[in-house]
């Protein structure tokens, strides 16, 4: 069941992305005057902000995981397999 859901999820993304691209694609209607430097660099800085924020969250989470679940942590407890001596 899960794998079917995953397959549908992937298919949905494969359909949705081209549809959104088509909807946003440049058509024949005339555009407005704009400063492409501003638009392009703004996009770049927005993306960099997101990238660094996500990077900080992900690396912070990994650092915390390594710190919290080290063997020498005061609250460390054996896994259920280790407790049973199966590991």
């Amino acid at each position: 069941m899960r794998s079917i859901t995953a397959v549908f999820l992937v298919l949905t993304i494969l359909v949705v992305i081209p549809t959104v691209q088509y909807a946003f694609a440049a058509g024949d209607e005339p555009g407005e005057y704009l400063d492409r430097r501003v638009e392009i660099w703004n996009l770049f800085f927005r993306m960099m902000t997101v990238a660094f924020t996500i990077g900080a969250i992900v690396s912070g989470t990994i650092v915390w995981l390594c710190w919290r679940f080290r063997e020498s942590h005061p609250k460390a407890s054996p896994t259920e397999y280790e407790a049973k001596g199966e590991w």
Partner: protein
Amino acid sequence: MGHHSNWPEWIYIGVVIALLCWVGAEAWNVERLIEHVPEDAKIIKVTGQQWFWTFEHEDGTKEIGELHVEKGKAYKFEITSKDVNHSFNIHDYVVLMDAVPGRVNTVWFAPMEAGEHDIQCKEFCGLIHYNMRGKLIVEEPSS
């Protein structure tokens, strides 16, 4: 297996997909904005060849190595090449488009202040590629 909850993984997947959608939508939106040419944009035919740029205005005026435009007006470049691949680049205005033989690529811009800017080839096109440069001169509007 199967005794623990895996909702954090699903939240993680959801957040990643939402972010990818947002990144895609933002990029597409900017692409849409900068690809729509204003109705009154003047067409300039740009031809690249080893190793200089030629420009032809709507009124038939031709320029070599220098391009004169007016501040506050929109220009649509129709870019092609006579020999090998080049790439038309006005770095200061983030204009960059390949010049390919047998194909016309377009890009538009609207300079908002008077001044001089470098034009260069951004695709290695042979021995003197490094010196395939030009000058964009943005002038005050004549009328």
